């Protein structure tokens, strides 16, 4: 088993209302000088086999990410 980390982020150019809301909340708490805030998912998977990163990539294509609105990256932990 090796651990693979999949990161799924909203695609550039796609509005991220959640990120905006968090940015607003942070600003209200007094955190100034805040630029963009983007919120995505981190998925940690324990995968068996010779090519865990390849398997995870396959998982992304088939389920974990929606290419219309999300970009993903895969890396070993």
């Amino acid at each position, binding site marked *: 088993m090796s651990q693979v980390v999949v990161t799924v982020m909203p695609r550039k150019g*796609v509005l991220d*209302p959640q990120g905006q809301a968090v940015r607003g909340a942070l600003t209200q708490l007094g955190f100034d000088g805040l630029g963009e805030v983007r919120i995505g998912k981190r998925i940690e998977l324990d995968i068996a086999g010779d090519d865990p990163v390849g398997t995870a990539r396959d998982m992304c294509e*088939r389920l974990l990410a*929606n290419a*219309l*609105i999300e970009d993903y990256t895969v890396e070993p932990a």
Partner: protein
Amino acid sequence: MTRVAIVRFPGSLDHDSAARAVAGMGGTAVEAWHGEPELPAGTEAVLIPGGFSYGDHLRCGAIASRSPVMGAVGRHAAAGGRVLGICNGFQVLCEAGLLPGALRRNATLSFVCRQMDLEVADADTPWTGGRPRGAVLSIPVKNNEGAWYGDPASARPVLRYHGEDPLGSVDHIAGIANEAGNVMGLMPHPEEACDALLGSMDGELVIGGLLR
């Protein structure tokens, strides 16, 4: 009597109300279980009801859209059969690629349960009961992730929010059909507007699209 298969996933919530609405209009509702690779024998139309299939985990509708029964729904649609997805069912159809676009988090960042006015944007599909363009229907929405996102040119908008749109859909889109018009998805819940006692009968105009 049209035989309407109502797809049931773990976490489907509106299969019973949908079946009641179909039966109330003279159709026959049968259950299509998510794990089956085929639709029930004699299925003439398919309804994917609302709910939180697979707990809305990962992305709404994503896990359900990959289940065995969806292959059969795809074949049914490709053969010109009618398919209606309501709320989570709409999300499933988008995730399955049977309708364009995706449903994203509401602009309010909260669940919204509200009776809404919907305007007929395209009178030439089976899904608005022949009501003219601009006619207004009263049907409730209830969702967390109901903001349709995509290229409006790629879609065939059938219903738009009339007046306010707390969800923040592109072009105020509430429901779309595929090019051929046989597959339809919408976020509002027509099955909860098929009974005068509940305040509106307008949902029958949408559900009627499933029935011969």
